[in-house]
């Protein structure tokens, strides 16, 4: 057994504290969801599952969660198809304006989304698209595409192009090369992209709260409007805590099986 040097011990302690800080709000959210009073107080005077029962019984939240899921799914499909095609072109081909195109695709990562959403609201209004499912899905696809592009660029960079070249030289048509060689190797990246797109879209509040239509109020939009008007319904805490738990689980599984973090 190696003896722990003081420097190393300090580093371990520091890391532990950093993680405590990183996860504290999430843990507190979970704790608060078990407090049966209408406004969480620490220490809670009692614990109960009443808000979880409320969550299961509530039709409103079910429809909000369904809306979130539908939008996330559709946006995710657009994001991984368009994003991985683009990533493939970026990795395998050389062409003029490559840097510019890459910048355009990654722009939503650095440009202010709140500002963009304000403009999009106005444009959608002019096009008569405000509040439509199509409008929301396109907006969500745009904010998730950069994640797919980044993840898939790093995935394709790891796939040896000589494999494709070898298959082609043996007479395999391009489509077969793509299906038999590239696709299987790209599966971990695709799954990672899909997971990121789904989660980012599912949890988006900035864009959706401005452009979400009457029929497509997503769960985060509902939560955000509660925060600004009638107050947070503790049932939403229970749902939020559940979402966080699912994300924690997904992240752990994703990291162990697919090495998610390496792709970012």
């Amino acid at each position, binding site marked *: 057994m190696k003896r722990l040097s003081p420097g190393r011990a300090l580093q371990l302690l520091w890391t532990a504290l950093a993680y405590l800080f990183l996860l504290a*709000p999430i843990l507190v959210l979970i704790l608060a969801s078990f407090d049966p009073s209408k406004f*969480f107080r620490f220490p809670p005077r009692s614990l109960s599952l009443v808000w979880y029962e409320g969550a299961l019984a509530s039709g409103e939240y079910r429809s909000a969660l369904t809306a979130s899921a539908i939008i996330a799914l559709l946006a995710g499909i657009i994001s991984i198809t368009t994003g991985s095609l683009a990533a493939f072109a970026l990795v395998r081909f050389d062409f003029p304006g490559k840097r510019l195109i890459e910048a355009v695709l990654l*722009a939503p990562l650095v440009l202010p989304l709140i500002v963009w959403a304000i403009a999009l609201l106005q444009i959608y209004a002019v096009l008569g698209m405000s509040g439509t499912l199509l409008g929301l899905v396109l907006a969500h696809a745009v904010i998730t595409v950069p994640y797919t592009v980044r993840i898939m660029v790093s995935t394709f960079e790891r796939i040896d192009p000589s494999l494709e070249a070898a298959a082609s030289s043996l007479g395999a048509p391009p489509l077969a090369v793509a299906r038999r060689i590239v696709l299987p190797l790209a599966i971990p990246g695709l799954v990672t992209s899909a997971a990121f797109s789904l989660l980012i879209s599912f949890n988006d509040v900035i864009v959706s709260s401005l452009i979400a239509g009457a029929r497509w109020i997503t769960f985060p939009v509902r939560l955000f409007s509660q925060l600004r008007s009638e107050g947070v319904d503790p049932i939403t805490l229970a749902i939020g805590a559940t979402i966080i738990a699912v994300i924690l689980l997904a992240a752990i599984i994703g990291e162990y099986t697919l090495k998610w973090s390496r792709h970012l």
Partner: protein
Amino acid sequence: MRSSTPLLFLLPAVALSAVVFLAPFAWLIYASFKTQGAGSLLMADGLTVKNYARLVADSYFAAAFVRTIGLSALTTLLTLVVGLPVARLIATGSGRAKGLLLALMLVPLVCGALLPSLGMIHLLGPLGVVNGTLKLLGLTTSSIKFLGTTGGVVLGLVQAFLPLMVLPLVNTLSRLPRDVEHAASSLGASPLRVWRRVILPLAMPGIVAGAVLVFSAAFTAFVTPQVLGQGKIATFGTVAYQQAALVLDWPFASTLAVVVLVAIGLALILSAQFDRLLRRRRLAA
């Protein structure tokens, strides 16, 4: 494959980004030169620079701008200070522990801004966990205010964006040999000296990448300052939102947006220049 193939592959994604993402920015520039009719919330005809004049004339917006830059810089610095030792530990780690640490680091990235902010409210609020604990320990009788203060907002931003600093750092530091500290200290260098002379310089590309990500995320953040600042800490994001969604002054909100865009553009150009400078230096060395 033919030369048109890359174009075909790129077209869907680029078209999507160009039409849905970039086109609205063009609209913003146009709308920023419009104004609302007297006593109306609808846009009036004609173009004007009134909004820009208002922006310049009112010190409130200059203050919000400076405050936002300050908050973002502080957030960047704190994520670096907190994140660097963590990243080094992860980079030198192995096996399950490393995987778990990385997995947990991903969580704030994908759970959106709202849920952690909601947790922060219950953590830092007057009746929340921190104040509750302090009162239980008898350290205070009345609540200490975190929400609605700059400190509370910075805490929220650091929590939200720490992964944006740590992940690029882990990537860079993983390329360092694992026992750099050991090798250097066996040559008689103090740990502090090893960090300053060896690890920090080699981590520079990761630091720059992380800093750009954290700074721009903090600069444009809206949910975290809005929720944790309780409307008291005006940042550019919250002011733009207030004007657009509550006051319904879209032309003015657009003007704010254009200013943010110009600022972000400048920051990106500067960081690219800095990155180039770093690379040239390294080549020279």
